[in-house]
C-alpha cells in the first residue's frame, strides 16, 4: 500500500539560501509523525511547499501515490489535506460557529449549489459537535477575534478537522497554549487519530508534546533530515542532542 504522503528530494531556495535541501520522507495511514528541529531549519517552509503555499524549487509531493506537487492549496484541501499555521489563522470577524462552518462548507456540493442551498451548508450539527469536542461550547456565538490565544488555537485546530480530512499538517499547535489546554489539545488529537484514523504530521518545539503524541519523529537541521526514528531513538541520538535537544 502506498503511503498517504510521500515527499521526495524536496528543495526550496530563497535566492542563495537553501531553506529546504533535499528532504524525503513518507507518512503511513493513521500515523502521527512529528517534525522537530531548531528555529530556521526549514520546517514551516517544508509544510508550505507540501501544501502549495510555496512552489518547491525541485522535488515531488505525492498524495496516495498521486503527484500533487505545486497543486493549489484549495484543491489540495478538497482532496482531504488540511492544515494549521504557526501563527494564529482564524477569521476574527466571524463567530466561532461561522469559522467552523466556513472550514467545512467548500466540501459541500458545487459552488452554485452552495449559493442556493442552506445558509449553514448543512454543517450546523457538525460544527456543534466540534464545538463540544474542543470544549468551546460557551463561546459558539462569540467573535473569534475576541477569544483568548489558547481558545483561538483550539478553534484553529477544530477548523482543520471540520471537513473530515485524512491528512492534517499541524504547524506548532502547542505554541503559546497553557498546560491545561495543551492536555486538552493532545487528548483531542489522539481521539481523532484513534476514532477517525486521521493521519497527522506535527511540527512542534514542545518536546513533551511531540514525544508523547507522535509514533515517529523526523529531525530537521539546516534544511536536511538529520535523524529519523521513534521518539526514544531520536531522543538518544547524539547528533540530535548536539544540534537541537542539548545535554
Amino acid at each position: 500500500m502506498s503511503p498517504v504522503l510521500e515527499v521526495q528530494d524536496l528543495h526550496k531556495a530563497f535566492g542563495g539560501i537553501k531553506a529546504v535541501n533535499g528532504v524525503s520522507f513518507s507518512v503511513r495511514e493513521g500515523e502521527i509523525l512529528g517534525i522537530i528541529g531548531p528555529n530556521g531549519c526549514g520546517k514551516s517552509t517544508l509544510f508550505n511547499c507540501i501544501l502549495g503555499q510555496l512552489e518547491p524549487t525541485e522535488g515531488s509531493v505525492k498524495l496516495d501515490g498521486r503527484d500533487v506537487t505545486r497543486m493549489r492549496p484549495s484543491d489540495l484541501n478538497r482532496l482531504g489535506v488540511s492544515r494549521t499555521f504557526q501563527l494564529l489563522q482564524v477569521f476574527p470577524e466571524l463567530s466561532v460557529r461561522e469559522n467552523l462552518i466556513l472550514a467545512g462548507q467548500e466540501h459541500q456540493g458545487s459552488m452554485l449549489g452552495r449559493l442556493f442551498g442552506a445558509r449553514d451548508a448543512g454543517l450546523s450539527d457538525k460544527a456543534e459537535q466540534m464545538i463540544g469536542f474542543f470544549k468551546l461550547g460557551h463561546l459558539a456565538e462569540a467573535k473569534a477575534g475576541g477569544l483568548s490565544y489558547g481558545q483561538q488555537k483550539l478553534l484553529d485546530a477544530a477548523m482543520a478537522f471540520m471537513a473530515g480530512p485524512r491528512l492534517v499538517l499541524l504547524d506548532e499547535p502547542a505554541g503559546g497554549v497553557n498546560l491545561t489546554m495543551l492536555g486538552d489539545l493532545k487528548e483531542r488529537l489522539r481521539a481523532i487519530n484513534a476514532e477517525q484514523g486521521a493521519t497527522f504530521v506535527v511540527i512542534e518545539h514542545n518536546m513533551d508534546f511531540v514525544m508523547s503524541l507522535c509514533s515517529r519523529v523526523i529531525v530537521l537541521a539546516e534544511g536536511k533530515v538529520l535523524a529519523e526514528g521513534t521518539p526514544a531513538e531520536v531522543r538518544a541520538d547524539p547528533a540530535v542532542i548536539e544540534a537541537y535537544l542539548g545535554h
Partner: protein
Amino acid sequence: MSAPALESTAAATRSAARRIDGALITLLIGAAILWFAPTGMGRYGTYVLSLWLVMSIGVMGLNLTLGYAGQSSLAQAGFMGLGAYTTAILTTKWGVSWYAAFGLSGLLTFFVGILLGFPALRVRTHYLAFVTLAFSTLVWLLLRNEQWLTGGAFGIPNIDRPQFFGIKLFGALEFHRFVVAVTLVLSLVLWWLVRSPWGRAFTALRENPVRAASLGVDTRAYTLLAFAIGSAYGGFSGSLFAPLVEFIDPSPFTLSQSLFLLLMVVAGGSGYFFGPFVGALLGVVLPEWLRFAGSLYLIIFATIVLALLIICPQGVSGLIERCWAALGRRFGRKAGGTP
C-alpha cells in the same frame, strides 16, 4: 409547565427569532416607506430620492467588492457609465426594451468585472486600486472620445423611461416607485448572497486569503466573482440612472465619481449591509440639505464627512452598531441585573 418544556419553548422562540432576519424586515419596511415618501415632495425632491436609491445600488456593488471581499476598486463609476451607456444606446438607437437593456447592462458589466478581477489575483491593496483607477480612466476616455457610439461630450439625449405592464412610468412619482421596486429586488438578491456560504467565503477572502485557501475556498473564483457581481451592480445602477436623468454625458462617470462612490462605502460603513444606503444618503441627499449654505456647502459637507470618519472609522453603520451594543448592555444590566 415543566422546566424542560419551558426550555424547549424558549429554544423554539430563539430559533424562530434567528430565522426572522432584522435586515430583511428593515428592507421591506424601508421599501414601503419609500414607496409613499415622495408625497408632497414635488418633482425635484422625488428625483433626489430616486437618485439616492440608484446610487445606493452602485455603492452596494462596491460594498460587496470592497467591504465584504476586501478587493480595492476605484472603477465603480466606470461600471455605472458602461451600464448607463449600454442602456441608453440600446434603447434610443436600437429600440431595445429597457428590461432587456437592463439585463444586458448587468451581463456586460459582470463579464468586464471578471476581466478586471484578473489583476486582483496578482496584486492587492493600493496596487490593485491603481489598476482599477486606470480602468476607470479608460472607460471615461472611451465614453468621451468614441463620438460615433456614445455621442462624445454631447452625450445621448431623450432616453425614455420604461413601461411596467402597460403603465407608463414617465412621471417622477411613478418612476420613483419603479426605482424603489428594482432597488428592493436587487437588495434582496444581495441580502441572500451575503447570508449564503458565498458571503462567508467573501468575508474569509477579505480577512485571510491564505487561510481561506487552506480550507478549500477557491480564492481565485471568489475574487473574480466579487468583482463581477459588484461590477454588475454598478451596471444595474447606471442602467437605472440613464432613464432617471433622461440625458447622459460622460461627466457623471469620471474618476472623481469613483472616488466619491468609495467615500460613500467608507462613510456608510464598509462591510455593513445597510452601509451603502447610509453612504449614498450622505453623498446624494446631504449636499441637497446643505444648499442653504450656498457656495459654502462643499466645505461643510467635507467637514462633516471628515469629522465622521475621525469619530468612527467604521462609518455611520459602525457608529450605530456601537451605540446599539451600548444600549443593549445598559438594557441588559437593568433587565437582568448583571453586568
